[in-house]
C-alpha cells in the first residue's frame, strides 16, 4: 500500500510500524532536535526512547515505532516539539 513521506509517495505494508516502513525505504532521519537541530533516527523500536517522534497526518509527537502504517497517511519529519495542524506548538 502507499503512504506519503514529506510529500513523496512510498510503499509499505499495512499494519507494520511507520518507522519500519521508513527504514525499509532508506529513510534514516526522523526528526531534528529543538535547539541544536541534530538529526535523530530510530533507536529503541519499543516505544520507550522518544527518538522517533514525527508528524503524522498533522499530529506531532507520534512515536512512529509503535504507530501502525495505514493507507495514504502523510508522515513528515518533526522539528523541535512540532506544530499541530492549527499551527500551535505543543509541548511533549
Amino acid at each position, binding site marked *: 500500500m502507499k503512504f506519503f513521506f514529506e510529500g513523496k509517495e512510498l510503499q509499505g505494508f499495512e*499494519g*507494520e*510500524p511507520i518507522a*519500519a516502513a521508513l*527504514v*525499509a525505504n532508506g529513510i*534514516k*532521519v*526522523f526528526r531534528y532536535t529543538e535547539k541544536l537541530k*541534530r*538529526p*535523530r*533516527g*530510530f*533507536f*529503541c*523500536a*519499543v*516505544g*520507550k*526512547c522518544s*527518538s522517533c517522534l514525527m508528524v503524522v497526518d498533522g499530529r506531532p509527537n507520534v512515536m512512529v*515505532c*509503535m504507530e*501502525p502504517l495505514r493507507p495514504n497517511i502523510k508522515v513528515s519529519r518533526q522539528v523541535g516539539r512540532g506544530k499541530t495542524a492549527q499551527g500551535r506548538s505543543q509541548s511533549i
Partner: protein
Amino acid sequence: MLQTEIAVVGGGPAGLCAAITAAKLGAEVTIIDDNPQLGGQLIKQTHKFFGSKSLYCGTRGIDIAQILTKELDKLPIKKLLNASVIGYYENNRLAIYQTDRLLKLKAQKIIFATGAGENTVAFPNNDLPGVYGAGAVQTLMNVYGVRPGKRALMVGSGNIGLIVSYQMMQAGIDVVAVIEILPKISGYNVHAAKLARLGIPILTSHTIKEAIGKDWVTGAVIVQVDKKFKPIPKTEKRLKVDIISLAVGLSPTSELLWQAGCKMVYIPELGGYVAYHNEDMVTSKPDIFVCGDLSGIEEASTAMLEGEIAGATAFETLKGFTQDSKQIKEQAKATLAMIRQGQFGEKAKLGKQKLLAYSATSNLTKTQ
C-alpha cells in the same frame, strides 16, 4: 471508570504468566499492553531457549509468546491492547491512553511487568541516526523483515550482543566486529562460538570512541582500553559501518513505580533502580507487585517464574491462600533458585540478596 480485581501492566513473558496464574486461580484480571499483540520482546526472539523442558527449552521465543497468548485467551482475562499506562493515581487507579482516548481503571491489586529499556553509552555523535539499540535492530529484522543497513559494529558481547550479531549475519548484514570493554566475552560461549565460526572478530578490552557522520552514521572509531578501562593512545581503528548497535545492558522501566511511591533501591546487579520487593514479589506497597526485568534485569525464563509468583501472591492477598497458590509459588521459587545457581545467574542472585538484606534494615511493610 473501569474496574478490575487485578491489573497487569505489561504483556511480556512476566506479565503474561502473572495474568494467566492469577486468572487460573480465580481472580478477575485485566492485562494492559502498548503493543497490538501480547508477547513483549519474545516476539522478536527467533532463537531457541536453553534450560529445562518445563521452561520451554528448545522452543523459540516467538513460539513461547504464542503458547502463552493462546493460554491467556482461554481464560476470562480482559485485554487492553495498543494501550499505554501513562499514570498511577492514588488508590490504585491507572490512567491509560488507548488510540486517542483516555481510560481510567481502578484495580484492587496491580502487578507491574513493564520490562526494561536499552541503555546507551556516552561517546561523541551517539545520537546520530544509525546508532541503534541492539533490540531495535532485532525487532526490525526479525519482526518486520527490514534490514537497517549493510555493515555493523556491535558494542557489547553479552548474550543480546552475540545473538543479534549472529542474526544480522543471517539477515545479510556484514558484522565488522563485536567489541567488549571487559577483558573477556560476557555472554554464553555457544553464541560466541557461532560468531567465531563465521570469522567475526570479538575484540575484548575495546570500546567505541566516536561515531562518524553528519546526517547519519558512516563510520566508527574504536579503541583498545587498559585494565582501568582507559583508552590506550594510538590503538584507534576506524571502521566503515552504517549501523552501530548498542548492547550495553538494560535498565528497568520503573517510572510508574516511582510515581506510585514504591520504595526504590539502587542495585547495579539488577540494572539500576528497582522497587524493593520480597521473595513473593510484593513491593513496599502491599497492593503493588513487580516481576520480570522491571524487578531486576534477567531473562525471559526467570521473568516467567517471577510472573507466576507475582500472580499467585496477588491472588492470595485478594482471596486468601489455597493449596494451588501455595504449590505454584513453591515450585516457581525452587526453579528460580535452581536457575540462579548457574554461572550466569550469579549476578541476579547477588542483586536479589542485596535487596532482601536491605529490607531487613528498613521499616518496610512485611507481608505473610
